[in-house]
């Protein structure tokens, strides 16, 4: 079998080198697909068609399989996130302590549904399945930073602060 030559990087963007590095570390093996998509998402913020194509081609995985994996797992997003992300935990403990009220208040404030980004690209409103900080429920992550025992007022205050930036 002829030696495998990986395809060239899509552009000069240095982030592709990081993505390529993950694949090289795993010997360009097919099972590195999820690991690589994680690297793409952490470097670019989301997965777009170009990156999925590039990863699929480099790992010699059918495009359908790569797209299947990217859409199967909730952690991966195919849409670019806003400048700030407000993630409200919707795990059981948070639900019992009223996370649904926080979600409703945030949706009303931003005029978007969970999983969407405001039209100006400023704020994304997400929900999480559980971040494991259940003892401090309800939990909200502001740009990934965990804050416990949140009230609707506190969440709205943070959202207002971001919107004013």
């Amino acid at each position: 079998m002829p030696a495998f030559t990986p395809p060239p990087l899509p552009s000069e963007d240095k982030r592709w080198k990081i993505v390529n590095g993950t694949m090289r570390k795993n010997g360009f093996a097919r099972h590195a697909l999820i690991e690589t998509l994680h690297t793409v998402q952490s470097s670019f913020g989301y997965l777009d068609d170009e990156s999925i194509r590039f990863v699929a081609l480099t790992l010699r995985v059918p495009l359908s399989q790569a797209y299947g994996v990217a859409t199967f797992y909730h952690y991966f997003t195919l849409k670019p996130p806003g400048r700030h992300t407000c993630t409200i935990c919707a795990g059981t403990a948070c639900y019992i302590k009223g996370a649904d009220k926080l979600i409703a208040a945030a949706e009303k404030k931003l005029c978007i549904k969970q999983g969407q980004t405001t039209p100006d690209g400023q704020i994304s409103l997400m929900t999480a399945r559980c971040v494991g900080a259940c003892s401090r429920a309800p939990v909200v992550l502001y740009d990934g930073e965990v804050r416990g025992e949140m009230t609707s007022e506190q969440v709205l205050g943070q959202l207002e602060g971001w919107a004013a930036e």
Partner: protein
Amino acid sequence: MTIEELEQIAKNARQEQEKFDYEVKVCMDLACASQGAGELKDALEKAAQSCGKKVCVRRTGCMGPCSHGPLVRVDPEETLYHHVKQADAPAIVDSLGGEPVKKLACDLHEHFDKQVRVVLENAGYIDPEKIEDYIARDGYKALLTVLTEMTPNGVVHRVTESGLRGRGGGGYPTGLKWGTVAKAKGDLKYVVCNGDEGDPGAFMDRSVMEGDPHRVIEGMAIAAYAVGASKGFIYVRAEYPVAVSRLTTALREARRHGLLGNGICNTPFNFDVEIRLGAGAFVCGEETALIASIEGKRGTPKPRPPYPASSGLWGKPTLINNVETYANIAPIVRNGGKWFHDMGSERSKGTKVFALTGKIATTGLVEVPMGIKLREIIEVIGGGVPTGHKFKAVQTGGPSGGCIPAEMLDIGVSYDALLKMGSIMGSGGMIVMDDTSCMVNVARFFIEFCMTESCGKCIPCRAGTAQMYNLLTRICTGAGTMDDLALLEDLCSTVKETSLCGLGQTAPNPVLSTLKYFRNEYLEHILHKRCRAGVCNMEAINSETPSEVTA
């Protein structure tokens, strides 16, 4: 690494600790860290430097009672301080050697007295990023004993003798599983650690991986020796970035000390571990789906047999255990199977870690001997439901479990007892609900979870959970009829009996258990269009009931 070298490291670490008169330990687990434990530790270090006393400030994993955080413990006095703020640091350092700071001291004797710590024995004592701390507390001693003094069969025998059962939820006897993989034929075998704690409301595995990562690695290495594997994988949720980084550090340290890699402890035993990230799919907690995910595919389960023990990862014999199961292995090897067997109830041995959350005074991690009454966990250890409200139910086992009502609280916790009550042990989430929770809505919440998390491979789970969700929504909005209830019950048994994997087979449990113990709430919703907790919005049907949309 030899036993002598290990003892030397332990001795050095202890000598290093003896240089200090006082040790101030700061809990840096997620709950405490989110309240400023990091700044607090910096402030304590600064105060310690200028106080003239010999003080060592150490970060640790979860100390347990998270609702009291940020927590600080001062040794050797064992004084526990709660709700400590950055500004309190000088007062704590000043008090060393004298009277404890009164306004911060907390008495949690009742919380701790009933607990027995095996898995959490190091939590709150060691710095999770320092292998020396772990070795100083007998870490890796079990691994070296196993490699130099025991045969693989002997290890399997000891684990079997202990009566340990899988802590991931199913409760399959661990020794039996190890024996099956050990007997399976194959030149290559794998050991996998299931750290995909997808069950919402549970965080035991996160705390163990973050607070005592070496314990998991040691357990895996012992398992690998017992079953004849040379490669291991830890599958961790991507939602736990701290756990991933602690495990990465721990693996690097273990390799550096020759506790992983080739020819461990000058024996022919080779073993190394790789971390694999999950990507937010609850179904990947199921072993065949987890294997698919490690292979880089969509996490859909496969019919069993063949079981992973004979054909798992890349078709090779694979041993899959939960984080907490591996965390129990080193103490079992050190203290003997009988020691473990003597703890717990008749058919459930040892201890179990629970994540106690919800409407309860003291939330956090607790470790109790099996067989303890649920009432003791909730009322004594957890301090009961905060005043003004009445206990209604406790939910165990997450979306696969059920709700246990107040009248069943005097039953001892064990795999079999919980199963009999219509719930399961699960991985150990324990969520307390009071009279402000509507049980129909709770059932709807879990079915919605299972509906979104269903992988879609088999029809009963994919379509069944969606239909169950529709029926429950009808009941919750006041549109439900008695026919809907009958249909719901019928669907429950269909989904339970015909689904491919554990997710579907257990998805109806929250509905079945609430129907069993809280049937009158369902009937109130259907017949009287009334939600006694005031959670469900019946406005569509009954415009006289004013209530806010919350469901």
